[in-house]
C-alpha cells in the first residue's frame, strides 16, 4: 500500500493537443499537490476535459509531458491507471445494467472475487444512499443518483487520485450539495481530487488551489484568496431602500471613493470596487467612509456588505471576457474530446 499524500500528484509541462483546427491544449502546465482538492476552472471549451483525458491516460498529448505520481501518462500508462479513477462528464457506468451489476462488474475487473465484489457493491450502495435503487437499471436513475453511482464506481478501489470532470453540471442544488459532501469525505481520506468546474463558487468552496484555464493554457494559479486579491482587495455591495435614491447614491459614492460604481439589474442594488490602487486607505476604511457619506446625504441603506471579489469578477479581470462560452465552442470540445 503506497498511499502518497505528500509531494506532487500531477506534474504537467507544456501539454498540447489539437483536434483538426481546434487547439484544445496550447501548452498547459499544471502542478497539483497531493492530498487536497485542486480546482481547474474555466469556461466551456477552455480545454478542461481534454486536459483530464490526457492526465487519465485516455488521450495522448501531441506534445509536452505529464507525470502522475511520478509515472509518465504515455510511457507508463498502466502504472497511472492503477492509481487513478475518472468520473467523466458522461455517465461512465453502463446505463443498461443495474447499480449493483455495474459495481460488481468493475469490482471483478479490479480483481475482486465474486463474493468480495458483491459485498463491496452493497457497502458502496449503502454509503451512497442507493440501496433502494440497487436493482434498478442506471438509466432509470435521477441525475443526482447517476452522479453518485458514478463516483461510487470511481472509488471501488480507493484511488490515490480522482478526476472529477464537472461533477455537478446539470444537478439541482441539493444533489450538488451531496456531491460536495462526498468530495470532502474523499479528500479527507487522503485521495487527491482534481475537480474541473465552470462554477466559480464551487472551486471557491472546495479547492485549496485553483488553476484558471482559458484557450488551452493556465492563465492564473493560486489559492482562491490569492486569485481574488490579485484583482483587487474587495467589493462593496449595497442595497438601498428606495430605488429613486440610486442616482444620488451613485454620485455620492463616486465622489467619496473615486472609483467607478456598477449598477446592478436589481433597481436598488449597486457595487463598487474598493481598496484597489490609487487609494491611501484600505478597503474597510474606504467602505466606512462611503457609508458615512451616504448616511449624511440622507440615503437609506438596507443592506451593506464588504467582501472579496467573486471569482466571476476574477475571471473577467484575467481574461477580459466573461466566463461564458458559446454553445458552439462547447460542442467543439465535446466532439473533439471523443
Amino acid at each position, binding site marked *: 500500500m503506497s498511499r502518497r499524500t505528500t509531494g506532487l500528484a500531477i506534474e504537467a509541462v507544456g501539454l498540447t493537443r489539437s483536434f483538426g483546427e481546434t487547439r484544445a491544449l496550447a501548452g498547459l502546465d499544471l502542478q497539483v499537490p497531493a492530498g487536497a482538492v485542486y480546482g481547474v476552472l474555466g469556461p466551456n471549451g477552455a480545454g478542461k476535459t481534454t486536459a483530464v483525458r490526457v492526465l487519465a491516460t485516455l488521450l495522448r498529448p501531441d506534445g509536452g509531458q505529464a507525470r502522475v505520481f511520478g509515472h509518465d501518462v504515455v510511457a507508463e500508462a498502466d502504472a497511472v491507471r492503477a492509481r487513478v479513477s475518472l468520473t467523466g462528464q458522461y455517465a461512465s457506468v453502463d446505463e443498461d445494467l443495474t447499480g449493483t451489476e455495474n459495481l460488481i462488474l468493475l469490482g471483478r475487473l479490479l480483481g475482486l472475487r465474486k463474493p468480495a465484489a458483491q459485498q463491496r457493491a452493497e457497502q458502496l450502495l449503502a*454509503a451512497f444512499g442507493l440501496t433502494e435503487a440497487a436493482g434498478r437499471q442506471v438509466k432509470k436513475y435521477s441525475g443526482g443518483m447517476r452522479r453518485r453511482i458514478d463516483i461510487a464506481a470511481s*472509488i471501488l478501489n480507493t484511488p490515490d487520485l480522482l478526476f472529477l470532470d464537472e461533477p455537478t453540471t446539470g444537478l439541482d442544488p441539493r444533489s450538488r450539495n451531496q456531491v460536495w459532501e462526498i468530495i470532502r469525505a474523499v479528500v479527507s*481520506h487522503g485521495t487527491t481530487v482534481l475537480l474541473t468546474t465552470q462554477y466559480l463558487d464551487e472551486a471557491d468552496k472546495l479547492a485549496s488551489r485553483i488553476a484558471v484555464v482559458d484557450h488551452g493554457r493556465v492563465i492564473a494559479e493560486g489559492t482562491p484568496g490569492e486569485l481574488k486579491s490579485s484583482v483587487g482587495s474587495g467589493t462593496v455591495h449595497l442595497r438601498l431602500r428606495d430605488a429613486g435614491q440610486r442616482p444620488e447614491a451613485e454620485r455620492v459614492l463616486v465622489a467619496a471613493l473615486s472609483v467607478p460604481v456598477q449598477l446592478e439589474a436589481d433597481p436598488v442594488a449597486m457595487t463598487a470596487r474598493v481598496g484597489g490602487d490609487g487609494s491611501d486607505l484600505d478597503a474597510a476604511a474606504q467602505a466606512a467612509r462611503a457609508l458615512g457619506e451616504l448616511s449624511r446625504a440622507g440615503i437609506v441603506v438596507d443592506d451593506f456588505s464588504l467582501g472579496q471579489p467573486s471569482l466571476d469578477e476574477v475571471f473577467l479581470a484575467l481574461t477580459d471576457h466573461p466566463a461564458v462560452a458559446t454553445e458552439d465552442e462547447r460542442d467543439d470540445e465535446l466532439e473533439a474530446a471523443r
Partner: protein
Amino acid sequence: MSSDTATSTGRAPTVYVPSSEALATVLAPGARPTRPSPLSASLTFSWRALLKIKHVPEQLFDVTAFPIIMVLMFTYLFGGALADSPRDYLQFFLPGIMVTSVVMITMYTGIGLNTDIEKGVFDRFRTLPVWRPAALVGMIVGDVLRYVLAALVILTVGLVLGFRPDGGVLGVLAGIGLLVVFSFAFSWVWTFFGLILRSEKSVMGVSMMVLFPLTFLSNVFVDPSTMPGWLQAFVKANPITHLVSSVRAAMAGTTDASAMMWIMLWSVVFVVVFGTLTMYRYNRR
C-alpha cells in the same frame, strides 16, 4: 423487467444525506486486489454482454426474427425458379443463408461498440488497469453466443421446412462451428470500424456496403458457373464463398479441405490485421 421498475412506485423518495461514517467505511483503503488475468477480465466483460441481453432482450430480435425472415423469403422466392421446388433448393441453400445471416449479424458488434463509446462507459473501461483487449474480446465472445443462437434458429426453421442434412448431427455441429470461428474473426473488422467512425449510422452504412456485395456475390444463392468470368473471379476469391463451401460440405457429411484451409487462413488474417488495427485505435483514441 417489471421487477426493475417496481421499486420506484408507491414509495415516497427518501432524501439522501451523505453520512461521514458510512463514507469513511467505504473509503478506508483496503488491500488492493491483484490484477485479474486476461482470461478472467475477458470473461467478466462477456458477463456484461449477457447482462445486457437480459435487460434489453429486444436486441435478440436481429438474431431471431431477421434470420427467420431471410430463410423464408429466399427459400420461397428462389426455390421454384432455381431448383425443382423450395424443398429441393433448401438442401443447397440452407448452409448459405445461415452463413449470410450470421455474417450480417456480425456488424452489430461494431454498432454496439460505437454506441458504448458514445455513451462514455468505455472511458471507464479504458482507465482500468486490465489487459487492454479484454473489453473487446469479452464483447465479441458475448456476440458469439448470439451467432450460435442465430445459427440454431435458422437450422430449426430449415428442419421444419424440410432441410435434411446428410452429415447428421455431427456434420451440422461442425458446420456451425466453422461459421462461428469465422464470424468471431470477422467481428474484428467491425470493432475497427466501430472505433474509427463517428456515428452508429456511419458504422451501419459502411457495414452494409461491405456485407451486401460480400454475401450476394458468392455461391450462397446460385452456382457461380453461370456468372460472367470477371464475377466468377471475385466469387472465387471471396472468403464467404470458401466459408459456404466448407459449411455446406460439413453439413453434407464431407470435407472441403481447400475451402477449410482458406477459411482458417482468412480467420487468422482478420484477427491479426484487424485485431491489431482495433487495438491500435483503442489505445490511441
